[in-house]
Structures are given as structure tokens and as C-alpha cells.
């Protein structure tokens, strides 16, 4: 089974045996990977009935629910790590979701497509069209992504929430890690997606 690159990077960030909440866990592939690689005690939240059933059949503990409305029911500090992989751009209130993640987990890990990537900029600038890339692979009229942002935007939001970014891993469109020396400015233009781990400030 081939794993998604952001999942593998997240797995490297998660301590062994941690309590992990995966928000928008889909079919549970990240939770299964974390269970296998890190021996975590995992939980998930997922909207789709079929995905929840797939998770339950795999022995995962997943609550059918919505990141936008159901995170408020989780107590403070209930988890070591709360993960939101490739989902923040599809939430109705990304700021609230991020705030809850920082409250529920000691660490929050978010991966998202970077709307500042040069291919995205080029498509808008040169062709005057909404971009479609490997990370943003649906047309504007079919996309569930309602709150896309750039790396800079995300960093600003973290500042606003008083969150301290611990690690930022920028990935190219071919899934190669960009060198850290390029910093946020480099990531903002060269990264197709990023994985960010943060803590309350």
C-alpha cells in the first residue's frame, strides 16, 4: 500500500503511543498508518457514512460528525496530537476549527494545499482561469474547497491565534521537500502543499 506523502510526514511528527484525533479522517488510512508505525491510540471524526463504516470495520474509533460543529464537544487537552490533513480549506470556519484543535490537542498538525504556489499564480495571472493542479484537482464549480489560503495567510492566522509554529514542511508538486533555508517566502511560492505542526503560544 502506498501512503500519501503528507501522511508519512505527519507520522514522523507524531510521538510513539500518542493519543491522536484525526479530524476529517476519511477512510481511516492515516489513523491506520499511525497505529501501525507509531502504536497510537487514535480517534477520528468523519462526515461520510460509508467512510465511518469503513473505519469501524478496521477497528478504528470514529465519530460521524462535522469538524465545523462537533469539535466544540471535545474537552481541553484531550489529545496529544490533533491532525487536520487536507481538510482545512473545506471547512466553513477554518479559524474556529484551528482554535478548537489548539485547545483539544497539545499539538496541532495541519496539511493544506498552498494557493500561493507559482503554478496556481501562473494559471490565474497568465490564463485568467481558476487553477487546477495535482493538489487542487477539481473545477471551481465542483470543488469543496471554499477557504483556500497561501502559506503566508496561514502563518498570519497562526499569529492571530497566538499559535507557535514548531515545524513547517513545504513540499513541491512532485512531493519533494524544499530546503528549510528558503523560509516562508520560498515556501509560499515553491510549495504545492505544506505540513505544519504548531502549539498554543
Amino acid at each position: 500500500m502506498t501512503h500519501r506523502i503528507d501522511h508519512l510526514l505527519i507520522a514522523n511528527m507524531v510521538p510513539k503511543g500518542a493519543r491522536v484525533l484525526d479530524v476529517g479522517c476519511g477512510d481511516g488510512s492515516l489513523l491506520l498508518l499511525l497505529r501501525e508505525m507509531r502504536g497510537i491510540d487514535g480517534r477520528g471524526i468523519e462526515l461520510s457514512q460509508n467512510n465511518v463504516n469503513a473505519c469501524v470495520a478496521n477497528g478504528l474509533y470514529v465519530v460521524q460528525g462535522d469538524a465545523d460543529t462537533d469539535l466544540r464537544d471535545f474537552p481541553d487537552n484531550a489529545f496529544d496530537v490533533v491532525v487536520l490533513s487536507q481538510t482545512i480549506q473545506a471547512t466553513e470556519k477554518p479559524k474556529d476549527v484551528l482554535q478548537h484543535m489548539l485547545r483539544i490537542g497539545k499539538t496541532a498538525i495541519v496539511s493544506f494545499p498552498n494557493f500561493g504556489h507559482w503554478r496556481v499564480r501562473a494559471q490565474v495571472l497568465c490564463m485568467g482561469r481558476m487553477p487546477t493542479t495535482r493538489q487542487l484537482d477539481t473545477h471551481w464549480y465542483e470543488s469543496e474547497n471554499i477557504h483556500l489560503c497561501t502559506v503566508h495567510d496561514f502563518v498570519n492566522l497562526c499569529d492571530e491565534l497566538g499559535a507557535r509554529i514548531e515545524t513547517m514542511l513545504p513540499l513541491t508538486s512532485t512531493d519533494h521537500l524544499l530546503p528549510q533555508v528558503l523560509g516562508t517566502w520560498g515556501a509560499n511560492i515553491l510549495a504545492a502543499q505544506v505540513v505544519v505542526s504548531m502549539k498554543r503560544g
Partner: protein
Amino acid sequence: MAPSPRKPTKSPSSAENAVPHSEIVQFGPETPLVLESGQSLSPWQMAYKTYGQLNADKSNAILICHALTGDQFVVGTHPVTQKSGWWETLIGPGKAINTHRYFIICANVVGGCMGSTGPASIDPATGQPYALNFPVITIHDMVSAQAHLCDHLGIETLLAVVGGSMGGMQVLSWASRFPHRVFSALPIATAARHSAQNIAFNEVGRQAVMADPQWHSGNYLAQDTLPARGLAVARMAAHITYLSEHSMHTKFGRNLQDRDKITFTFDADFQVESYLRHQGVSFVERFDANSYLYLTRAMDYFDLASEHGGILSTAFAGTNTRFCVVSFTSDWLFPPRDSMAVVHALIAANARVSYVEIETDKGHDAFLLHEPQMFAAVEGFLKSVARERGIHMLDDGEGI
């Protein structure tokens, strides 16, 4: 006018007591059933059925808890109604709760009328049926009785406790009171407390029974009669709450029953009237009126949070039980928000919990019907907990 039952004077429970169609375990004076009210029941008995085979280390036992008007006959032909078992959709060879894999136990609840001690049983002190001298029992009391039965069967830890509606309340009670005996719990279409609206519906049913002159202050058996009309009305009112407005509309609409036009009478012109009358009449043939009073009361009294300082999560503090909570979108008797309250409490208690909300228009009754998404969730959950408990299973379900 309430419908007239066909056989008004034969108590179903006294018949079942005389010639039981299931296993009976009797508990003598050395094992009284100590009740939540402070009273105790002695001697007393449980009528139960088992299906499938218990494995060598007794690790594959699943307890099924039945709902208000259910009984121990989950599968197979019911001895009184001759209909198939009430949970044949879910339980049986090759089904979601596979009797090739698991050992299924289902007992008639204490206070019931299919062989376990209830208000129609003979009070040893008087030689007459208990009637209203039967002590008020609670959901916890039903569970205490089931725990005695498990002791009798030599089963310390159940692989799963499964139930819907009032059965789901028993599942929550089991998980809260005997967490070490419950490896996993599957509460379906239920709540940790009965709502004001549900208590109100139950009260209407009880008042219908008590308003029937044949009830005789509960002593109808001694008078050789039955409050059949009152009980039928109670069942009709309750049955409305088991369906959804939408399912009633699609099933019956305003269709007329065996006629082309309305008759300007109070006959059952509409199909929905005819259906409810049939539900009421057939119920009377298999259920004891006093049992109906006692069991609805038990549901009303259930409030798991109140006995833990108002904080539901305390009821599950430190639990090691694995949970799968199931609700149905169109269930307005036990709406999804009631299940969500349980899920939130379990999350707060750091429990391992999954929650599945099944999209359906069938209302509360959905848990008894053909709901493939529920089957998939139950089957997947049970397989994973069986695996976790080290129960070796072949995928084709042929043995354990």
C-alpha cells in the same frame, strides 16, 4: 371507539409461565434480586434463549437486550404470534450478528411477561398474581437480573452487549455499572435518559390501560379478564411514535381501507386507522397490561447522568469498554441528539467510541428493519472487537 380484541380473557404471560418455550433459570431465597428501590424479589426466575455455540474460553458471548415489547425470541418462530423473531434482520447464520461465530443470549426482562418474573407471576406470599404488589423495577434492575443469568451461565465478560431503544438503555446501564464485564457495547436508537416527551407518551399509554374498567386496579387476572381495550389504545398511541411522519405518509397517505369513499361514520375508513387498530388488537394477544405499566415506568425513571451528579461522562469514567453508538436521522422518539449526548460523554471520558448516524425515513422502528448501513457498522464493529479479544474467526463464518 377502541377496537375489540378477539381473545380478551387469556393472559399471554400466564400461558407462557405454565408452558415455557424457552430455558428457565430459577433463583431461590439464597439469591434474591436486590432492586434499586430497596425492595428485593425472591424467589424469582429468568426465561431466556441462546443461539449459536459458546466457545471453550467463553469469550464469544453476546447479550441481546430487548426493547419495551420485545422478548427473548430474537430469531426463529415466536411461540405466541407464530411470526419470525423480532431481530432476524440483524441476527442469524451469516448475518451481521452471526450465530456461526457468536453465542447469543437474550432473556426476557424482569417485569416482563414471557416467562421471567413479572407482575403476572404468582406472589408466593398470597398465592395470587403480584399485579400492583410487584415492586417497581428499573433499567438497572433488569441489568442486575441479566448479570445473575450470566453468572449462572458461567460467563464473566461479555464480548458485546447489544440493544435498541429500551434495550439500548440496558446496554448503557451494563457499561456504566459492570464495565469490566462488557468488552464492547452497542447502544442503538437510545438515550441516557428518557425525555419529557417520552415520559408523556408513556403516561398516555398507562392512563389508557388504567382507564379500562377491566383493569380492576391491576387485579384483572384474579377477575379472569383483561384490560384489552385500554392496552390496545396504549399500543396504538405508542406505535405512532415508532414511525416517522414521512414513513406514515408514504405507507398510508390518506388511502381508504377496503372502500371507495368515506362512510361518514367512525369506522376505520383510513388505512392508517385500520393499521393502528390491528397493531393494538394483536398486541393484546401477546402482552400483559401490568407489564406494560412496569416496563414503561422503568424507562421513565432511567437517567444515567442524574445518579452521577448530573455529569454523564462520570457514568463512564475510566471505562475500558469499546462503544459503537448508532442512531437514525428520522427517529424522533430517540433522536440522534440523544445519542450524540452519549457520544460526547464517552469522548469526555476518553472512551473508545464510534458513532454512526444512519440516514433513513423509517423513524425509531428503523433499528428493527432492513438497514444495510446499520448491518455493516454492527458487523464491522463486532468483527474488530472479536479480533481484539483474540477470537479466531474464519471469514466465511464457519466456526470460531
